[in-house]
């Protein structure tokens, strides 16, 4: 047995075959009720589709092998890295990209140009989908400040998105406030509420913070559903004007294109601001808070201020995104701001890579666009979506594009010096 060193035999042992066989049997048993038995209600007979059972068996037999090979390869790689003890030897493509700022800048500009051309090349439907995706990019980047950098698990983030949307809808309904004025106001109101919520919950951390923020999320939604005098309850607010320029009458198409550019501009601004914050005194204290709160305090960081800043700066973006959302859909009601949305945004941050801007952006794009473009597979799309999430978490536990820390160069020294050289 051990002589077999070539081909498949190198990877697959008798034990594996046995295990896969058992797995296949288990899956055949599990899927038996839905894949095999089919009740024909017209003739009142039961169809036994035994062939499906074999298909499930064969597929799971093959897939368990593939799965095991992939896990083995992953673990092999980790073991190899541990053996050498040097994790920096092989630079990732991102670290290599960091060493060439010119290339990085060009790449970003090309991305931006493509994004700017998007509504011209494609139709209104595609543009509309992309607006939603970019709204989530802003949301995810905002939440990334609290969760990714600050390490505070907040589950009610969508509240602040709702506050932005309701700010625009209500101020427009009562006072005829236009979209452009509502943009900063929505952000501001979300920020104020963020600070107000933050003050009582700041003493909590971890799971407790998550539960309390979750509760706040539900409170917001229930209040909006029941306080008819303020929010018009579940029937919501309709006929919210789309964004327009200089009081001109815009067609739906023009307005959609305009909304697209507004949200694109906000994505760029958000990236710019978050990027700069990340690499500042405040950003470092956020990461220190995530890593070790007590040590951070011992290093002179005022955790209270740091947390408040994280909440304030994070909720602002949600408010702005909310205003744009209201302007895009022209109708809002509490159903748009459920807990599920909060979880989805959190998924984007975790899946993409906590604290990593490119990671969070791609996380948001994948989670919003994948189900959209999988519509062709109709009933399978949520299954595929779920499978992708599981695969990413198994094979890339730090997210698709994990965060890397800023490196600093120093003249003349940088590692050439021998160890123990005094």
């Amino acid at each position, binding site marked *: 047995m051990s002589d077999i060193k070539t081909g498949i035999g190198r990877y697959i042992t008798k034990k594996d075959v046995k295990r896969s066989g058992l797995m296949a049997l288990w899956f055949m048993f599990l899927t038996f009720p839905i894949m095999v038995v089919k009740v024909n209600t017209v003739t009142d007979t039961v169809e036994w589709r035994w062939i499906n059972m074999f298909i499930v068996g064969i597929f799971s037999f093959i897939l368990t092998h593939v799965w095991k090979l992939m896990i083995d390869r992953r673990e092999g790689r980790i073991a190899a890295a541990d053996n050498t003890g040097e994790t920096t030897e092989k630079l990732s493509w991102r670290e290599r990209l960091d060493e060439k700022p010119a290339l990085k800048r060009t790449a970003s500009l090309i991305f931006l140009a493509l994004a700017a051309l998007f509504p011209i090349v494609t139709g209104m439907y595609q543009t509309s989908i992309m607006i939603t995706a970019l709204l989530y990019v802003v949301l995810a980047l905002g939440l990334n400040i609290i969760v990714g950098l600050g390490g505070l698990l907040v589950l009610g983030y969508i509240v602040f998105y709702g506050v932005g949307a309701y700010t625009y809808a209500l101020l427009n309904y009562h006072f005829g406030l236009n979209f452009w004025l509502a943009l900063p106001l929505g952000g501001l109101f979300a920020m104020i509420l963020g600070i107000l919520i933050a003050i009582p919950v700041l003493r909590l951390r971890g799971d407790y913070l998550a539960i309390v923020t979750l509760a706040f999320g539900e409170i917001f939604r229930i209040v909006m559903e029941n306080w008819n005098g303020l929010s018009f309850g579940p029937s919501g607010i309709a006929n919210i004007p789309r964004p327009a320029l200089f009081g001109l009458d815009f067609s739906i198409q023009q307005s959609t294109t305009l909304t697209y550019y507004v949200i694109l501009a906000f994505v760029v601004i958000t990236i710019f601001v978050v990027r700069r914050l990340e690499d500042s*005194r405040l950003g*470092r204290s956020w990461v220190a808070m995530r890593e070790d709160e007590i040590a951070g305090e011992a290093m002179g960081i005022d955790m209270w201020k740091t947390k408040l800043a994280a909440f304030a700066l994070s909720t602002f973006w949600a408010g702005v995104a909310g205003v744009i959302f209201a302007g895009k859909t022209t109708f809002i009601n509490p159903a748009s701001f459920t807990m599920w949305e909060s979880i989805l945004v959190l998924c984007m941050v975790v899946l993409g890579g906590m604290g990593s801007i490119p990671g969070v952006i791609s996380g948001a794009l994948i989670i919003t666009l994948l189900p959209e473009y999988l519509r062709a597979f109709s009933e399978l799309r949520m299954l595929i979506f779920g499978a992708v999430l599981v695969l990413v978490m198994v094979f890339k536990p730090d997210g698709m594009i994990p965060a890397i820390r800023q490196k*600093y160069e120093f003249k003349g020294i940088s590692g050439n010096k021998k160890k123990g050289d005094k």
Partner: protein
Amino acid sequence: MAPILDVKKLRMDFGGLRAVNDVDLYINQGEIVALIGPNGAGKTTFFNCITGVTRPTAGDVLICPPSSHKSERINGMKPNVITERGLARTFQNIRLFQNMTVLENVMIGRHPRMKAGVIGAIIRDPRTRTEEKQVIEDSHEILKKLNLEIFVNELAKNLPYGAQRRLEIARAMATEPFLLLLDEPAAGMNPQETRELDETIVRIRDTEGITILLIEHDMSLVMSLSERIYVVDYGKLIATGIPEDIKKNPEVIKAYLGEEIDA
């Protein structure tokens, strides 16, 4: 001259347990003082009371920074305020910012000596940029002092154990303290590393003028390093004096080795 740290009748109760029982302690500028005692004697609790992690039940903690000579009562202050006043500490179980680079760890230590705010961070005005540059330079200098500059861009968690211990000291030094509190700096070190640590601590005191209070179990290190020793057991101060006296003190021997039973 007033002692830079003067602790009077410090008491800390956890429910019915008195972890620190009316301990008096003072440190003069430029001294190296050790606080020793068997496991569970209340040494770390004492540190926590001084650095603001826990609020003492009773007693006074007075500091008198050598720069201002103004005495101030610091019990009940938040840890970050105490650090700003000039007391820095390390932890018994290493508490580095694991996923940050070595340099960033030290830069965090510079935090209380920086001014940049949110607006400065976003618009990056000249003042913020100069400050940032200065901090990078300063932090690098501190790393050099502790022979850590080869690890500059390495993540803290990837460092060898001894280097992690040194990084904790570097990080604490970055806050520009006048008093450095080291909680078991030699724990888990081999004899070679301990000798190097001994030299490092003396160097910090001599060249930086930082006074040092340390908790340590390694007796050879304590005896060679410290000028005065305080011994606590069950939260109570049982002896104090120069190393030679402490070595011979029957109370201390009893606390460490147990009492002889007459049979």
